């Protein structure tokens, strides 16, 4: 008995040690950042002023708003392209799946800089012919208030993650049988998609959406090279002038991401809780 207790004691000690190490590794930088933003070492006093200044900082709200809409547009574009294609592959063309999967993984091996260089070249095609449709299209795509070119690129960048999320969701259900059951009951294809497939893909769709949101909020390279100022670029640009403000912004964006993840988990878990309640 004494030996067993001794073993348990050792296990617990190691658990605590490992958890402490992990906590220090993960939370240490965050705590340091928080300390840096709220403690004034010259005046030796605490202040939340940097967080208050955030909302009045030039360009902050505009960059957040732009990034948010860029993320929404990317998510919509991603799903409009990917969901029907993946359903069609699952139901009718399973042999194409390895090919589509390979294509979806390509963005992982193409550097954002190379991708942006290619995009820049294409965007330059219309510059010499002012008044042409290509020139107007270029101008629309690069509109500074809402650059449509970014969601088009982000949709490619996020493809590997969105593909994996949706693929896992589709494989978790017997899609063929569900579709045939609903068709047999008289459902036309749009209703099959809306009332049967999408509700059962909710987890995959939410995962894809969260990953896309996180990627768009954190993406710096492409936006910076193309001279747009979404949130990540704004943080870097503003950081040149003030020390505390960009760190406070980063912490706030991290909290925002956590809040979104929590919301997704909450929405996903609420149904399970409701199910449990009903069965009780």
């Amino acid at each position: 008995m004494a030996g067993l207790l001794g073993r348990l004691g050792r296990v617990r000690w190691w658990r605590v040690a490992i958890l402490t190490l992990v906590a220090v590794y993960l939370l240490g930088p965050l705590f340091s950042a928080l300390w840096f933003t709220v403690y004034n070492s010259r005046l030796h006093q605490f202040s939340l002023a940097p967080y208050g200044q955030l909302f009045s900082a030039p360009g902050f709200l505009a960059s957040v708003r732009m990034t948010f809409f860029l993320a929404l547009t990317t998510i919509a574009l991603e799903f409009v392209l990917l969901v029907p294609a993946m359903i069609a592959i699952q139901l009718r063309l399973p042999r194409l799946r390895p090919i589509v999967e390979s294509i979806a993984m390509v963005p992982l091996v193409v550097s954002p800089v190379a991708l942006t260089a290619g995009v820049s070249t294409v965007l330059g095609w219309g510059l010499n012919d002012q008044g042409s449709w290509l020139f107007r299209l270029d101008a629309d795509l690069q509109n500074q208030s809402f650059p449509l070119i970014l969601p088009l690129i982000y949709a490619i960048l996020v493809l590997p993650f969105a593909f994996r999320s949706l693929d896992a969701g589709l494989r978790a259900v017997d899609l063929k049988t569900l579709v045939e059951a609903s068709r047999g009951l008289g459902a036309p294809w749009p209703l099959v998609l809306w009332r049967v497939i999408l509700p059962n893909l909710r987890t995959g769709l939410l995962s894809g959406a969260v990953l896309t949101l996180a990627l768009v909020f954190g993406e710096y390279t492409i936006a910076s090279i193309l001279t747009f100022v979404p949130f990540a670029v704004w943080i870097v640009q503003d950081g040149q002038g003030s020390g505390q403000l960009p760190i406070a912004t980063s912490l706030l964006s991290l909290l925002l991401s956590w809040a979104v993840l929590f919301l997704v988990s909450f929405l996903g878990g609420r149904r399970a809780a409701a199910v449990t309640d009903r069965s009780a």
Partner: protein
Amino acid sequence: MSAAGLELKDLNRSYGPVQALDGLDLTLAPGELVALLGPSGCGKTTALRIVAGFERPDSGKVRVDGADLTQVSAAKRDMGMVFQSYSLFPHLTAAENVAFGLRLRKVAAAERKTRAAELLDLVGISGLDARYPHQLSGGQQQRVALARALAVRPKVLLLDEPLSALDAKVRLQLRDEIRRVQLDLGITTLFVTHDQEEALSMADRVAVMRDGRLEQCAAPAVLYERPATAFVAEFVGTMNHLQGTMIDSELVEVAGRRLPVDGERPTPGTKVKVLLRPEAIDLEPLAQTSASTTDSAPTSPSAIGTVRIATFLGSITRMTVMLDDGTEVKADLPSHRASEFPAAARARLIPAPRPVLVVEP
């Protein structure tokens, strides 16, 4: 629910070089339950999916009450289907699943609720209406699937091996339930199964399929007692294969007796396999030391053997006998006679004097 007739006319379907259906003809009378029975790959599921509209035949027609539905989409055929795999919509409760088809038909919410409750009651699971599929057992899920298929008042009910994923006890219960509901509603039903016991116990008629063709379609008793072909005879029920010789075009000699031949008749002198049901074989005890008897009964190795196993099946006991020529034979005896044949006892086979089917080995 008005019953409709279903007709499958000269259906052909191939997948590359594989001919799944080869001129299938089958007609179901209104209110009839027909089981499509056959080994894996015989085309029974393909036939059902063509009737449901999930696949198109290369040629042939599907008619319901005389109306040609061959090119009509699955969504517009008014058929109810229960699938082999659990097909309930996971995000909907049992009641919502049942009401799904009614909602598509824009039935008012109150009526949907009432009808779903009625149908869940009909299939014997009232009170589970608020459960999600993952909270139901396999048998309960298939009952909900049956209720869902019936909710839209289909002209034809299609059952694609709905019991195959269930355990034996639940399978028996649900088998009876499906038949009861089908008879109550008088709905025309096409039932695919590879389980002959299911087919024989549930169906008004059983259609045995082989290589995309219909071998025989008849009432279960007819199919069992008067199989049209050797394939049907072997596929349906337990069948013994005894060695025999054609005496002339009408008679075969088996286990020392001459029996009339039914069906295909090989030329006289041909060695054949004689197909005999266990209940068509009687046993006579022999002395342990000698096969000889006082009468003129046959003593050939194909007529005498040793009792290996006696399996009690209630009113009958199935005796497994190893003949001296190496053939294993099963014979059904009334259980009160089983004590005459302890293990290792010697016995002589006595085939019943009925017409038999023969096949050339």
